[in-house]
């Protein structure tokens, strides 16, 4: 049964997040115009990293249940972590736990039916960046090379999960053959999973987990073809959140708003997170 490997320190999982940081990421979310696409994406990924670290924390520190890479592409390809160089990726979860804290204002219920502003400290790894063209092919090639080193050394591990978050088209060629190469890399537990999420400032309804290309507008067809078919472990998570999807659905969303991005990342990673054997 593929996608069944337990996650522990001897056989860690691997998450790779590819983040579009091109100029257009300066646009604002259609349904949340107070935020730019880049700010929303950074917030969601910072939250996800926070949750992964908390899940892996014990009294003796952060356990290295996951290797992790955040690869930004805008103008050029960069490490998403300000303290870790691109060639040091992937890094282990315990190595990124100590990070910069930022003060944010959170609205909480005041106990009398109203809301009150409370200042909270949140950990920050990713900053919102929007700059230059979209070298998605270069970023995917980098991720592919990284996986070619990781996979042979982690044959017992749950297969790597890559999530590519972008608002547009690559400016450096056709990424489909690179994506195919990535999807063909495998551990004993199954093939690497590549999920793509197209985020947008449009207010149009998102297309989530389509199973055929004709459900996707032309602009998203290439990303659809690049995406892995969802394994059972992800379909189970989606069903648990009342998404009705069929067995050939792909890990792809088009025109996603901020809520869809959060849901997509949660569903795509939760099943693996639940495989942790502390």
């Amino acid at each position, binding site marked *: 049964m593929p996608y069944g490997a337990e996650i522990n320190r001897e056989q860690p999982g691997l998450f790779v997040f590819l983040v579009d940081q091109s100029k257009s990421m300066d646009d604002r979310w259609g349904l949340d115009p107070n935020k730019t696409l880049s700010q929303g994406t950074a917030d969601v990924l910072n939250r996800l990293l926070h949750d992964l670290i*908390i899940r892996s924390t014990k*009294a003796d520190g952060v356990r290295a249940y996951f290797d992790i890479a955040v690869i930004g592409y805008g103008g050029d390809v960069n490490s998403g972590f300000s303290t870790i160089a691109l060639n040091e990726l992937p890094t282990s979860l315990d190595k990124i736990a100590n990070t910069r804290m930022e003060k944010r204002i959170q609205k909480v219920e005041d106990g009398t039916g109203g809301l009150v502003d409370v200042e909270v400290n949140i950990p920050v790894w990713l900053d919102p960046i929007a700059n230059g063209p979209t070298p998605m092919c270069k970023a995917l090639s980098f991720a592919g090379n990284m996986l070619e080193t990781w996979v042979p050394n982690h044959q017992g591990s749950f297969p790597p999960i890559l999530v590519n978050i972008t608002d547009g088209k690559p400016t450096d060629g056709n990424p489909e053959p690179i994506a195919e190469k990535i999807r063909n890399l495998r551990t004993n537990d199954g093939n690497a999973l590549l999920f793509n999420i197209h985020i947008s400032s449009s207010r149009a309804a998102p297309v989530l987990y389509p199973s055929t290309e004709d459900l996707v507008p032309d602009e998203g067809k290439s990303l659809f073809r690049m995406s892995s078919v969802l394994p059972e472990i992800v379909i189970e998570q989606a069903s648990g959140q009342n998404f009705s999807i069929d067995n050939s659905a792909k890990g792809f969303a088009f025109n996603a708003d901020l809520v869809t991005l959060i849901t997509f990342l949660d569903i795509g990673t939760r099943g693996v997170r639940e495989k942790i054997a502390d």
Partner: protein
Amino acid sequence: MNHNYETSIFSVQKSGNKEEENEDAYAIGKNGNLIAISDGASDSFSSRIWAQLLSQEFIDKPIDFNNKEVFLAWLESIQQKWLEKIDWEKLPWFMKEKAKGGDFASLLTLTISEERNRFISYAIGDSCLFIIRENKCLTFPIEKSNEFNNYPYLISSHSKNNVHVFGKIKTLDCEIRENDIIIMATDSVAKWILQEYEAGSDVSIQLTKMDSELFKDFVKGLRRSKELRNDDSTIILIKRS
């Protein structure tokens, strides 16, 4: 006549973990007639410490769990001890946040009363007690192997999570007989024992012949054949000596 009770304890941590990371804990009174076993939840902060505190406190201060006031005051004193063990000021953000979520653990106790020729067991969570008597197996508090799930109700180190704890206590008051063998087990082995009995197999012969090395091999073998979940695994065998 007063008897002593002979206890044998076997515990193996999860595969991939160090011995000191085993989050099952137990404590035994000096005559062997007071025993507690506790299984710390693996995704909480320092559940090994919480499980140790809960089980040891039952030996040091065995109370009547059916008295709500007494039970909650007893629990609060353990929570205080847990709080004092954490150096909050020195914790980095992630540890502080995790610790704020609290620790969780099961608790299963056994008090043997010679005078009454009976024992009382209290259970919160999915650690189980088995009484092997004339080839039959009585089980408490879980009676069927399919009743185990990933989210048992557990005792928290934080009062705010314990609002319903008193109502979750299960009690067994049972006669004890000369040749009874009592087994206390944390959930992974408990589930296996139940499955074996359900399949008509008497595992008491195998379990009573255990020593530490045999138990390690036994657990390893069952994990390999996927009959046992990879979890901390502990059993306590109790016989009248």
